[in-house]
């Protein structure tokens, strides 16, 4: 009795309120998305909104159940839970049913469960466990390796299920690692690689290479403050390039100009390493390294892009505006943008969206649920929803920061990162700012697995948070 009143006092009611509001807004929009004049009863179990109401009920039961569980259970059993979910992820490869080209569902009595959704909280728990241990140093190779293994196992299994979108969610743990001491430049490198990825697909290799080499030369000038050396290097580089070009012309070699530039740069660098080694110029070494990482990434992207599946290529090309086939791969995003864009300031009103009602946007009750919000509730409604998500994520970060245990804080950051990744990618893809990688909008998208997984994810954290004061008492 004492314990329960303690719980009621210490639990973060604001988070629960935000959760509840989001869930019911989500349900309202699912109702609108699948609304059909002929089936308008809200409790129709045959319809998605009827089913979603059941999932919501079950989610509440689940939430209460988690809150009543001792918080030590989650810290103590984090690794076994992780193990169980990994087992399920592996089992679904064999026992699962296929849908939309992905083998990632268990079917039990007509209800489908997607273990990949539950992988998120389990991995989050495992990472919190490992990172909060004494002796874990994020910049140490062995620690990073352990972390890597914890991530690679679920990611690998999910990729094997052909569900690349869910796998990409795990990249959000970069924020957790950054918070726990990962070098800032690595986070920066992450964003740079994304930029390189985009630019490699958009611009010819010669331009990319020129920008990278130019960047590294400017960095050299910045760190060395020696114009003479800078000029010598530039002259050497250009000399090399012209010499190679002359060779190409002389020997009639079948070789691209960007390759010649690459070789010239390589030669310059090799020559430079000798001087750098002799004069112990640490910064210049880093610049060189960074430029080669960038070059490597650029070549890697080109290579990897060739290996992608056709529909993924289409989606990426489409996002970058390379292809504009509005009846093919770009159809979803185009219709989605029309739906949201036509909402105006105040929206068309509940159940009044023509794009929504007449099914112009595919997957509208799941991945493209934000269209319904945008179309029927307009800019005001969309902003409110984004605002609520932002408030929720920031609230979780705030809660995480007030934790006394490392485990709880790390777990909290994991929750915030996963939520943020989902919201950013999902809303981004509906308004044409992010690639279409098919991950749900938390609490809004139709589906039991997704709702339950987010409920578990959040309520474990709220349970940990409610217990924060007892930890050292």
């Amino acid at each position, binding site marked *: 009795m004492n314990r329960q009143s303690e719980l009621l006092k210490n639990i973060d009611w604001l988070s629960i309120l935000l959760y509840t509001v989001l869930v019911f807004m989500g349900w309202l929009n699912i109702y609108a998305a699948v609304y059909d004049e002929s089936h308008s009863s809200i409790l129709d179990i045959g319809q998605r909104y009827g089913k979603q109401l059941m999932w919501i009920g079950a989610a509440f039961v689940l939430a209460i159940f988690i809150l009543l569980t001792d918080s030590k259970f989650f810290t103590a059993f984090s690794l076994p839970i992780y193990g169980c979910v990994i087992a399920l992820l592996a089992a679904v490869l064999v026992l699962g049913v296929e849908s939309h080209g992905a083998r990632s569902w268990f079917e039990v009595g007509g209800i489908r469960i997607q273990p990949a959704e539950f992988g998120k909280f389990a991995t989050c728990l495992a990472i919190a466990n490992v990172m909060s241990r004494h002796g874990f140093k994020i910049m140490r190779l062995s620690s990073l390796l352990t972390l890597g293994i914890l991530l690679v196992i679920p990611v690998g299994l999910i990729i094997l299920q052909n569900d690349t979108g869910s796998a990409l969610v795990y990249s959000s743990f970069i924020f957790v690692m*950054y918070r726990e001491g990962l070098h800032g430049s690595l986070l920066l490198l992450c964003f740079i690689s994304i930029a390189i990825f985009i630019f490699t697909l958009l611009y010819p290799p010669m331009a990319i290479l020129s920008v990278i080499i130019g960047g590294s030369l400017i960095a050299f000038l910045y760190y060395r403050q020696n114009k003479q050396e800078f000029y010598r290097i530039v002259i050497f580089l250009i000399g090399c390039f012209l010499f190679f070009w002359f060779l190409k012309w002389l020997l009639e070699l079948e070789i691209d100009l960007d390759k010649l530039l690459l070789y010239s740069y390589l030669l310059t660098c090799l020559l430079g390493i000798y001087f750098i080694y002799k004069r112990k110029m640490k910064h210049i070494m880093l610049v060189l390294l960074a430029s080669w990482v960038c070059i490597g990434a650029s070549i890697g992207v080109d290579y990897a892009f060739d290996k992608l599946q056709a529909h993924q290529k289409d989606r990426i090309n489409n996002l970058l505006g390379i292809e504009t086939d509005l009846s093919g791969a770009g159809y979803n995003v185009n219709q989605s943008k029309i739906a949201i*864009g036509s909402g105006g300031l105040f929206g068309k009103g509940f159940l009044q969206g*023509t794009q929504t*009602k007449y099914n112009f946007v595919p997957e509208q009750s799941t991945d493209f649920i934000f269209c319904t919000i945008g179309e029927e509730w307009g800019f005001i409604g969309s902003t409110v929803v*984004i605002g609520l998500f932002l408030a929720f994520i920031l609230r979780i*970060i705030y809660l995480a920061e007030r934790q006394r245990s490392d485990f709880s804080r790390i777990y909290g950051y994991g929750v915030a990162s996963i939520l943020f990744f989902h919201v950013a990618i999902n809303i981004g893809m509906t*308004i044409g700012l992010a690639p279409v990688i098919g991950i749900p909008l938390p609490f809004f998208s139709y589906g039991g697995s997704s709702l339950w997984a987010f409920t578990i994810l959040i309520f474990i954290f709220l349970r940990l948070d409610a217990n924060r004061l007892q930890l050292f008492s």
Partner: protein
Amino acid sequence: MNKYTHRKTVISAIIICVCCIYIIRLFYMQVIDDSFQMKAMMNSQRVVTQYPARGLIYDRNGKLLVENQPAYDLMVLPRQVKAFDTTELIQILGIEKETLIRNLEKCRRYSLYKTSVLISQITANKYAILQEKLYKYPGFFMQTRTLRKYNVSHSADVFGYIGEVNQAQIDRDSSYAPGDYIGVSGLEKTYENVLKGTKGKQILLVDNYNRIKGSYKDGAYDQPAVVGQNLTTTLDIDLQEYAYRLMQNKRGGIIAIEPSTGEILLKVSSPGYDPQLMIGLERGKNYRQLSIDPNKPLLDRTVSGAYPPGSTFKTLQALYGLKTGVITPASCFECYGKSKTPIGGIRMGCHNHQSPLNLYQAIQQSCNPYFVNVWRRILEDDKYHDVRKAYIHWRDFICSCGLGSKICPDFSNEINGSIPEPAIFDRKFRTQDWRWSYIMSLSIGQGELELTPLQIANMGCVLANRGYYVTPHIVRPTEGMNNRVEKHIVDCDRKYFDIVVEGMSMAATGGTARGASIDSVQICGKTGTAQNPHGEDHSIFMAFAPKDHPKIVIAIYIENGGFGAQYAVPIGGLIMEKYLKGTISPRKKAIEERMLNSSLIEPIQKKSGTSQTETPAD
């Protein structure tokens, strides 16, 4: 780990940053850029044009002449077209694959987002098959249209035909859209605005499969189509039918008018064609065939054909002579018959008859030298001292009878005819001081004088009414139509008309127009024979009946028909008898038979293969 606490700010900043970018983007998409509203509307709304039925056309007795029949157009919305089974579609439609692809490309070029006609005028049969399979072809749908249906197989020149509007017409009048029909000729053209009605529209809501989900705002913005107004013509279709039969295998035109009202009872241009040829998919082919036919069926001879009126014109010459006082009914002139009569330096031939003749007899016998003398007196009238001035006065009078200019606004293809202006002679003779004898041919309705059969009939009306004519018209004026029917008074004393009419009456009883006589009806007529330098003379007849309170005026012009009495007179007599009495008396059955069976042109069947050996006779 407290040394990394500041990093929560960095992470929060990134998250807030992303949310701000999204909100800005949403603001741009939803509030600033309004193109999405248009696109959403284009997605979900389909505007279906409701085509009104075109007005019907009736004859004077309420018989339905032109009505509508349903036809179906296959429409396409190029944006929604997906890859489809062309083989099946062309099989159903019965068209070439190239045609389909070409038309589709044309529609695509016109607009990706607007529906346009892919294949027009599909038969009801094919429509039934296609309608069932249409679900397989997203972006295609059917539209019901109405085409004309004709209950008669002649009189195409009266009705005219409809065709698809061209770009110039669309630019001029925005109520037309590509694929719409518009009157191209005849009444369809003149009364386009009356017949066409008003298009309506229905805004439907459709889903992603183009299935209709209901009407937009419960039809608040829908507009029903307004059916076109009907036309009642003044034609007597039975008479028209009879006249066409009499005119078969003859080239020429007939106009009959009820003189007191100006109503056109009969309008025959022969050879004509079946109006049904101008609808349906075969239209283009039929049109080409008609346009190369040497007998020119597309020429409306009654209002677009200009012919010398020949001796029928002598009636007006006599009238003017009496009016100006240069002759009296008792004036006599000599005629030497076939041996040409010398008149003031020229010689004029005639046929043999008694001599000398007074005015009545001259009209009765159609004596050429008599009217040459009249012409000389008219132009050498002492009142004017000048041939040119006298001519101008004469011309004004002739024109006041409705000749030499368009008189019937119902026909857009009507021509002016020609009562030559003096300037024409000035140029021809290179002097303004020409003599009467230079233009002697005009006295007997030849030379530069050209009238349409309608104008000849109108001349008949002036005589029949003894002094006026009413604007000839073929559509009864009703409210909402601005066809004005006016009475035109000809400035001439009635007693002069009575004299000329008496002469015409004598022609019908004992003169050139004997062959037109009808039992117990007194008719008045004047024959004409227009000399034709290219071949056989044209046979002409102008008449009205009965003599008092005339009910019908008729003008008949038969190309290459020889003397007036050979064809024009008997045909005129038969038509008037049919109109006045309803039947042909047994006495005239033989004439009727001869007229029905005689042919003045090569049989039409031969025209295509042997066109080289057959040079047009005129």
